């Protein structure tokens, strides 16, 4: 009987112990989940930021691209064009100009600008073999004129005027020819003839002449038209150049040219000013609450309100800043308004951190100072504050890193701007998180990539701020 009970108890014990171990490993797995999420986030952002180097190299070589679409048979066929002509660039010297369509990179057809950047990143040498079709159809076909066929009534396209230096003339086309097909694509309009060239050229595995069917004096001819031009464009690939360009250029409609200059300057101004406002106010309030305040209802109320203000959503502060500072006080939505509002947001955090720092200073320090006749302020100024300062600064920097990453509040204060200048105290402004938000909202290829690059810049700044806080804590903190 007793042996049986013991046996059951042992089995129970094993079960209870297993349960305990199992529970322990489940709790541990949550840490692994957090780690996995962090790694996934960082790796994903690094991967997305990788094309930056190729994008910058392309734009420096004069290849500022857009992905466009040809609507055809209810299908959308993408192709890549040059949207920005940069004189004196490598591309301009090779004869490429604005609106030219890029068809091949080496032996590959390209349909999207991202493919061009991938090709640049993979390039074995620093020369980009590129094949393009001029964006100006008159350089190929001269002037095409749609006409009604007098017999059948069908629409057809006639070469009306063809200059001798055009590609078509050199290939054997003459004015008066009716262009019927490009490869196997029927030609139905002047613009469409050019689009047919693009589509036909994209289908080819290599740049080369395209066959054009024409009708001349009632007879059909086939002509080989070398519409696609080729060149080797020198590309300077350097991460350092790319990062420098990215950090020093202004926002742009082309992701290859857009940079963070105004946003970084705006962020630094904003955080600096916020520090300037928040440090005296926060430390003053903390000193009052820790060193001066009597325990009465007012002190209790102030403490309760500070704790509550720390939990108010940032958009609410945005509304307050907008209504009081920007509108009622007519300060407009400028940098200084933004930093004053940001001060309100981080002030509760600064106060709480500063109070904790003040609390770590033992009373014996204060008593020693009082004993030699110091007044309360003298005690605070020359004894308590110097010892508490590292702790206060650490708390301030942590709060400022919150301000650095804050976007919602500043959107209300008008930091949602397209800037092509460096902001100053009284000007409209933008900051890095808002620049990221704007770029995420852009549909064009490449903006997601530079948003990722901007995220890396933001995280680097935050990391540096936190490293500074840790350094201050290690270097100056003392135990009592």
């Amino acid at each position: 009987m007793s042996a049986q009970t013991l046996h059951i108890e042992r089995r129970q014990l094993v079960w209870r112990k297993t349960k305990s171990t199992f529970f322990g490993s489940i709790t541990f797995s949550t840490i692994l989940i957090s780690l996995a999420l962090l790694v996934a986030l960082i790796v994903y952002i690094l991967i997305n930021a990788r094309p930056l180097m190729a994008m910058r190299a392309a734009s420096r070589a004069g290849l500022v691209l857009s992905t466009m679409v040809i609507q055809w048979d209810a299908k959308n066929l993408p192709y890549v064009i040059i949207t920005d002509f940069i004189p004196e660039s490598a591309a301009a010297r090779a004869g490429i100009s604005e609106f030219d369509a890029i068809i091949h990179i080496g032996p590959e057809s390209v349909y999207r600008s991202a493919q061009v950047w991938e090709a640049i990143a993979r390039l074995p040498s620093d020369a980009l073999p590129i094949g393009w079709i001029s964006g100006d159809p008159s350089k190929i076909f001269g002037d095409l004129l749609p006409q009604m066929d007098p017999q059948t009534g069908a629409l057809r396209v006639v070469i009306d005027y063809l200059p001798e230096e055009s590609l078509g003339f050199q290939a054997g086309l003459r004015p008066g020819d009716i262009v019927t097909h490009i490869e196997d694509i029927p030609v139905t309009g002047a613009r469409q003839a050019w689009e047919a060239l693009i589509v036909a050229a994209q289908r080819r595995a290599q740049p080369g002449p395209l066959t054009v069917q024409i009708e001349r004096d009632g007879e059909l001819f086939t002509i080989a038209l070398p519409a696609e031009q080729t060149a080797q464009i020198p590309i300077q690939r350097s991460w350092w150049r790319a990062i420098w360009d990215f950090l020093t250029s202004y926002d742009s409609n082309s992701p290859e040219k857009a940079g963070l200059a105004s946003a970084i300057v705006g962020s630094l101004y904003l955080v600096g000013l916020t520090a300037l406002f928040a440090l005296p106010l926060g430390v003053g309030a903390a000193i009052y609450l820790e060193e001066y305040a009597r325990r009465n209802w007012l002190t209790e109320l102030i403490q309760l309100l500070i704790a509550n203000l720390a939990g108010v959503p940032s958009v609410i502060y945005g509304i307050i800043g907008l209504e009081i500072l920007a509108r009622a006080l007519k300060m407009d939505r400028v940098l200084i308004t933004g930093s004053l509002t940001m001060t309100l947001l981080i002030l509760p955090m600064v106060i709480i951190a500063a109070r904790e720092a003040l609390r770590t200073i033992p009373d014996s320090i204060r008593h020693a100072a009082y004993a030699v006749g110091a007044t309360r302020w003298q005690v605070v100024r020359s004894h308590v504050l110097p010892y508490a300062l590292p702790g206060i600064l650490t708390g301030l920097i942590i709060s400022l890193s919150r301000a650095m990453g804050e976007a919602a509040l500043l959107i209300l204060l008008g930091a949602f701007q397209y800037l092509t200048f460096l902001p100053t105290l009284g000007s409209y402004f933008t900051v890095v998180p808002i620049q990221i938000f704007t770029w995420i909202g852009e549909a064009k290829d490449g903006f997601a990539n530079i948003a990722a690059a901007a995220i890396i810049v933001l995280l680097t700044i935050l990391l540096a701020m936190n490293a500074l806080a840790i350094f201050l804590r290690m270097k100056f903190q003392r135990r009592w």
Partner: protein
Amino acid sequence: MKKSTASQPALHAPPGRYLKERLIQGVLFACAFLAVVVTAITIWIFLSGSGIFFAKVSLWEFLGGTRWAPTDISTPSYGALPLIMGTLIITGIALLVALPIGLLSAIYLSEFASERVRKIAKPILEILAGIPTVVYGYFALLFVTPLLRSVLPDIQFWNALSAGIVLGIAIIPLVSSLSEDVIYAVPRSLREGAYALGATQYETIRHVVLPAALSGIAAAFILAMSRAIGETMIVAIAAGRVPTWPPDLLKPLETLTVHIVNVATGDAEAGAFIWATIFAIGALLFAITLLLNILSYWIVRRFREQYE
């Protein structure tokens, strides 16, 4: 410390010293009193701003209407229920993610982890806490949504589900650090008492430590909820900024905070009636978060287990 009136002339305070002390005390008090001023201004702004709004729209229409179309010129409609439900759905998903993971992490860190593991694990959570919310928004829109699409093909580019999940990830550190503080504060003697009765570690945590820390954990949950309700950027980026009724997890939706961002980034002129909506919405948001913050403050005070 009271200064005694010195009998020797050398110890007399310099003239004006008392005045200077009072002045400094006054300045310091003003810094602290700023909290009262800011709160008062906030309440005043929201009361007066909502006054304009509710002069035109009835409270019943605002809280009960299911069509939110303030920009509709011909038939504007101000039913905030889609926004309120949107906020609740996003918050609900976020809490489903953040509460279990955050609480279990807290239990691991305070009960199971060795000092060495703690030194690695805590920074992971702190880094997660320090990542700006626009970054989480980017992650939700471009990484989590495509990932979800492989399981749920119907999911739209902007949707509530991925925004909610990522918002949950963003508040895991808040839940875990607040809960860890209270779990850690449960005195050792309670655990040792349980072990002495033969309880396993799981039983100790389940029946002794967690009940003792319950009020603090509840307060942490409420703060996380308040934070999720007030969160703006993740939702603005990943959930689509379109008020929908009835709300659907796989479709875009709009929350209270996002409406405020929409008005601010829109092209409405100052003084247009749409600006009044952000005061009504803001007042609602402010009231909800304030209530939750006070509730958590009260729970901690009321139900705190006092030891010793």
